[in-house]
């Protein structure tokens, strides 16, 4: 069914939009903080990387489900 492929592509696109929005919001705050206080740069960088990896983790959940959907479709 072609509709299932469309659903999988739409699902992964939405997941990527959400993750992109979340991580860009996060890096905006981190960069503002680093610009205001350069001496807090190292702490902010560490927290930013951790939070970015967690947000990406959630986006990958949706991607894996979409991938499973495409691969396990009955021919």
């Amino acid at each position, binding site marked *: 069914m072609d509709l299932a492929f469309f659903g999988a592509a739409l699902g992964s696109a939405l997941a990527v939009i959400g993750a992109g929005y979340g991580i860009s919001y996060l890096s905006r705050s981190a960069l503002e903080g680093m610009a205001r206080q350069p001496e807090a740069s190292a702490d902010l960088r560490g927290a930013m*990387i*951790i939070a970015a*990896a*967690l947000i*990406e983790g959630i986006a*990958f*959940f949706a*991607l894996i489900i979409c991938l499973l959907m495409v691969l396990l479709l009955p021919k």
Partner: protein
Amino acid sequence: MRRGQVLSEGTEAAHHANQEDPTYIVDHVMHHVQDSNYISFFDWKLNLPHLELFGFDLSITKHVVMMWIVAVLLILVFSKLAKKKGLTPTGAFSNFFEVFIVFIRDDMVYNIMGEKLGRRFMPFFLTQFFFILTCNLLGLVPFCATATGNIAVTGALAIITLLVTQIGGMLEQGFFTYLKNIVPPGIPAWLLPIMVPVEILGQFTKPFALTVRLFANMTAGHLVILSLFALIFIFKSFGDVVSYAVAPGVVGFVLFISLLEIFVALIQAYIFTFLSIIFIGAALHPEH
């Protein structure tokens, strides 16, 4: 690394290039990402033994062999490191690993778990971090596979963290005190019907998230690289010249993604270990 990847994928794809069915590209891509019962190197193929125990399939597969290679590498490197005499490292080899080990000890374990408790668990976290890091990085070497790109491997690592959390918490705080402390103390009584199921479910969703995060990060990176290479062969249907024209751009992009993959390998090993430290620290000393 780039040439080796192009060689390994290009040679195998060229073997199938005469087929009319376009799904051979999908099969080829999936074959590189999934586990298999044989190791092949151009024309040499080794069929790995198929073992079974009480109906559980324990056969030796490509990822199992990769994990053995990682184990041998780690044993060699760390036994050489541990033999150095004296407390300060000398030479490039020890200094290189001192960076990682001191970072894990001071900024991760002792920061979160405190020094007394951290000292007990340092070997566990060091092993976990370097095992995941080496598995991730070895997946980027040509003709090698990523063991952590197998959900069973990452699931086993997360189950180990889960077991250490629960059993460590029960041993440290006492069985019933630990179960009571799963829900944080000081919550108003009307929130309890919501909080108890959420917290109990949370004990299981956290290792599940660890599993899927590491598995998806590793597999997605390799899938992107392989799909970009497959793009060259998909363009062949428009004419040979088109695929030759597209190839340099694709290879450049793949080089960039491979560098990103190295970064992601480091980050994912760090995140897995960091979250394990947080979970185990919270289970053993909930007041922190």
